[in-house]
Every structure is written in structure tokens, then in C-alpha cells.
């Protein structure tokens, strides 16, 4: 039993470590290259303020995309992360306004996000509804509830202590960046050094083999979707703290960038290959592109087009690479 269990796991781990390092280096090089180009094109780019701004935006994106990375590693998908963030932010803002307690508000956001994620996980793992359908339905349920709950209005004005989470600095570095680095480290340890993390790769590489080798696939999947939901809730906290306002519709534009960050980061949509480090690099790359478009004063209306195009290019590379490696194998 243990031998059959070890074989696919070892293969999955090798998959995850081996070519990954080189690919990650390519991506870091792309970020550096892009940064150099932008520095030449725009003087404002290299200012300390702008760099911190890029990092801060990338860290919010990473928080949403990190949970999504785990889901995609299992060959699943979570289309509800943006709408989840919107609903969690709205409910948390209302709680915070009613009680005046940032702690209660934050717990509400985390709980709301995790609950939505648990719902997704139950549909995917328990009822075996295809992930993109289950989470797509959840997207509209969340978004509808948010519009109903918030009406056309906004909830704004949160305690200064709470806002530190989004706008504050620690040793001259914005607080969200610490969150990004912290969750990158924790997440990488979990995915690379624990049974849970190895199981995620195995499920994504071959769900049948995973089940046959005794991995509790359903429990793992429910856990992964719940984590993804909770991370959306956490991102909602950071979002609220930075923008100081919640209204319906804030989560909708975040889904496509989150998927883009994961795919640019080299995590395969087909499951079993990828890393959280890649997602950090992906989030940085995407934020740099959008930031560069801003600095070059390109109409902001182009941004959804650019993000959509980047998703397609990243997915194209993913598909072609996969076919190439299959042909070799």
C-alpha cells in the first residue's frame, strides 16, 4: 500500500520541483525585463512611491490568487473568488459599522469567505458538479446577494487601526506586502512540506490514482475550496482597509486578474503543476503591465482587454507546453 501511495506522490513532487525552478527563473527575468523597459519609458516608474504601490496592488492580487492557485493545482477552478470578496467585504463592512469592532468585522469576512468556499467544495467534491459550473453558479449567487444587501449604496469610514492593515507602513514598507510574503512562506511550506500539500499535487496530477492510493480526495478538495474562500475573505479585509469603502460590484473586476496571475505564474490549468511563488511572480507581472499602461497614460478602459489577452496568452503557453511534454513522454 505504502509503495503504491509513494509512487504517484514522488512523481508529482518531482514534477513540481524539477522544471519549475527554471521556469520560475524565466518568469522572474520577465518581470525584471519589463521593469527595465518601463523605467526607460516612464521616469515616474522607478520612484519609491510607485514601486511600493505596485507591490501593494500585487499583494492584494496575490492574496486572492493564492487560494485559487491551490484549487487549480487540484485541476479545479474557483470562478467565485471575486464575487466572494465582494460579498465578504459588504457583510464585514456592515458588521464593523454596527459593532465598531475591527476584530468582529475581520472575523466576519474570513467566516463568510470560508463558508462560500465550503459551499463550493461541497458541490464539487460531494455532489461532483464540474468545478467551473459550481463556482460559476456561486459567482452569481454571491454577486446577487451583494447587490441585494448593499442596494445601490456604499458603507464607508472604518476605524483608523483597521485601516492600517491596508494603508499602514511597517519599517517603511506597506503592511499588505508583509501579508503577501507571510502567506507565500506559509503556503509554500504547506504545499511542499506537508502531506496535505503533496496530496493536492497528486489529486491534480491524477485524481483516480490519488483515490486508489488512499488519499481522502473529498476531504482534501473541500479543504482546498474552503481555503480559497477564506483567502478571498482575507483579501476582502485588506481591500476594505485600503479603500475605506464597500459597495456592490467591487469584486467583479478581480476574477480575471486573479486567474491571469495564477496562469502567468506557470500553474497549469490541467492540475498538478505549479507553485505559489509562481503566482507571486504572476501577480507582479500583471500589476506591472497595468501600472505601465497607467504611467504611459493608456486609456484605463483597455485594462480588461489587456488582462483577457494575457490570460489567453498564458493559457496558450500552458497548453502548448503540456502537449509538448506529453509527446515526449
Amino acid at each position, binding site marked *: 500500500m505504502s509503495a503504491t501511495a509513494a509512487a504517484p506522490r514522488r512523481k508529482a513532487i518531482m514534477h513540481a520541483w524539477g522544471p519549475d525552478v527554471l521556469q520560475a527563473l524565466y518568469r522572474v527575468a520577465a518581470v525584471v525585463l519589463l521593469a527595465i523597459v518601463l523605467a526607460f519609458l516612464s521616469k515616474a516608474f522607478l520612484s519609491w512611491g510607485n514601486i511600493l504601490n505596485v507591490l501593494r496592488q500585487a499583494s492584494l492580487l496575490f492574496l486572492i490568487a493564492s487560494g485559487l492557485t491551490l484549487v487549480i493545482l487540484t485541476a479545479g*477552478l474557483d*470562478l467565485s473568488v471575486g464575487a466572494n470578496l465582494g460579498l465578504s467585504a459588504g457583510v464585514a463592512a456592515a458588521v464593523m459599522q454596527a459593532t465598531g469592532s475591527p476584530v468582529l468585522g475581520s472575523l466576519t469576512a474570513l467566516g463568510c469567505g470560508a463558508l462560500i468556499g465550503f459551499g463550493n467544495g461541497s*458541490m464539487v467534491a460531494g*455532489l*461532483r*458538479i*464540474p468545478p*467551473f*459550473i*459550481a463556482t*460559476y*453558479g*456561486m459567482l*452569481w*449567487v454571491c*454577486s*446577487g*446577494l*451583494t*447587490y*441585494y444587501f448593499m442596494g445601490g449604496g456604499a458603507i464607508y469610514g472604518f476605524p483608523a487601526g483597521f485601516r492600517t492593515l491596508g494603508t499602514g507602513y511597517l519599517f517603511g514598507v506597506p503592511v499588505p506586502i508583509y501579508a503577501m510574503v507571510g502567506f507565500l512562506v506559509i503556503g509554500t511550506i504547506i504545499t511542499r512540506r506537508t502531506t496535505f500539500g503533496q496530496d493536492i499535487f497528486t489529486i491534480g496530477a491524477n485524481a483516480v490514482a490519488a483515490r486508489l492510493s488512499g488519499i481522502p480526495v473529498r476531504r482534501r478538495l473541500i479543504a482546498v475550496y474552503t481555503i480559497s474562500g477564506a483567502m478571498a475573505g482575507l483579501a476582502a479585509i485588506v481591500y476594505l482597509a485600503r479603500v475605506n469603502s464597500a459597495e*456592490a460590484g467591487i469584486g467583479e473586476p478581480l*476574477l*480575471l486578474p486573479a*486567474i491571469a496571475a495564477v*496562469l502567468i505564474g506557470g500553474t497549469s*490549468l*490541467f492540475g498538478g503543476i505549479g507553485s505559489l511563488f509562481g503566482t507571486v511572480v504572476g501577480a507582479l507581472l500583471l500589476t506591472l503591465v497595468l501600472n505601465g499602461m497607467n504611467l504611459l497614460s493608456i*486609456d484605463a*478602459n*483597455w*485594462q*480588461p*482587454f*489587456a*488582462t*483577457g*489577452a494575457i*490570460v*489567453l496568452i498564458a*493559457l*496558450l503557453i500552458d*497548453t*502548448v507546453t503540456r*502537449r509538448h511534454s506529453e509527446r515526449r513522454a
Partner: protein
Amino acid sequence: MILLITGFASVRPAFLSLPNITNIGLQSAILLIIALPQTMIILSEGIDISMGAVLSLGGVVLAMVLVTGGPVYLAFLAALGAAVGFGAINGVLVCLVGMPAFVVTLGTFGMAQGIAEVLTDGNVVVGLPAGFEAFYAARPLGIPVPILIAAAAYLVAHGLLYHTRFGTYVFAIGGNREALVLSGVHARWYHFGIYALGGVFVGVASLLLTARMNSGHPTVAIGMEFDAIAAVALGGTSFERGEGWLLGTLLGVLVIGILRNGLDLLMVPSSLQGVSIGILVIATMMLDRWGGRRS
């Protein structure tokens, strides 16, 4: 559906009045036109999330050509071109390159939305020629034009799906693609054709949409793809087995039309209507699973 009708009729007698029934038909016409190709796409184990955004884009293009004084046929051709273009992009990436449909169409969703917003700078295109609206309200033989067009679209889709080789292949691409390829059929091109055909239907729908609103709005139809997918799911078409039927989609469209109309009469806000449709879809999928497991 009968349950829904009797339920709404007992609470609100106005529900069964002739004007209201016509109203449901009018509201459902555009949805049906995009739900038909969505059925074929889902039958082929795909999905098209970009439809709502492309529909909005088509409407914007149509309105802009009309506002600049272009003739209606030219405006329609431009909208049709935009929609078929996006259908073809989806088709190339999904069918010829082999990329997963839901992420491809999510990407093209963003691109279409972006183009619509760049074209309009986020504003509504108004000032359409006076006569344009009239054709939407016209009633040859006492039947509103949108319902006629939707009926024609249904007949075309039915004919294609059940009386041509293309239709047989649509079912086979979803049900057993390998057998199809092994029997020497260029399945990829037929598969591509499904997405391109989707563009044609969306182009036609954009004509009705623009006429109904008498303007071009860059994001108005976003979310309609969800109603279309919901209608297909409610109609009993499977997402992964190549099984389903077009009549089911028609029924699904009517259920959604009746549900939204009835909830409107009950003063339920449209945000909660979306929630109820989402829950209805998930419930249908659950029943489908349990039914499937038993058989």
C-alpha cells in the same frame, strides 16, 4: 414550470393576462437566441462565458454605425462581424489549439468588454435614427417581431442539430470524440463551426437588443450568458456527456422568463432573481446527479 405558473397566477392574477404573456415572450426572445448556440456548445462539452460581453459589444458596434448615419444592413453586418469574430477566436483556441473552453471564453469575455468600453468610453450610445425602434415594436400577423425572429432561430437551430450531419457531429463531439476522429471526420472543424455559429446567433441577438433599448450600452448584456447557461442546464442538457435536447433549452428559457417576470410582479429585486436562478441551477444539477447515479 406548471408549478411556477400556477403559483404566480394564484398570487398575482395579472400574471396570466395576455399582455403579460406577450411580455414574457418578448423578454425571453433574446435569451432564447443566445441559449440555442449555448446548448450546442455545451453539448460539445464546452461553454461560452463570453456571450454576454460579445452581445453588448455587438450592440455597441451596431448603435455606433447607426448613429454615424450608416444604413441598418451595414450596422447589422458590422455587429455580426464582431460577434462572429469573437466566436471564431473562441473556436480557434478551444477547438484547434485545445485550450479549456471556460477560461478561453473568460479571457475573450474580458477582451470584448474592454473593446466595448474603449469604443464608448464607458458611455451609452444614444441618438439612433427614429425608424429603427419601430421594427422591434412591429407586429406582422399580430405577433411581435422579436418572437418571430426567436422562433425562426429555434427552427434553424433545430434543423441544424437534428437534420444535418453537423448536428449529429455536435452530439458526437461531446459524447464520443475519439470515435468521431477515428472514423475519419474532421471533428475539429465541425467543433470550430459550433463556436462560429454561436457568433452568428449572438449577432442577430444584438440587433434585437439594440432595437429594444434604442441605444448601445457597453455592459448591458453582461450576465445574460449566465441566464443562457442556466436555461440550458434547466433544460436537462448535460455538461459532460454530450446528452441533451433543444426543446429542453426552450423550456428552460421559458422557466427563467416566467420566474423573472413573476418575481418582478411580486416586487422581488432583480439581484435576488439572479440568486434564485443560481440556486435553481445548482438544485437541478444535484437532482441530475442523483438521478444519474441511480440509473
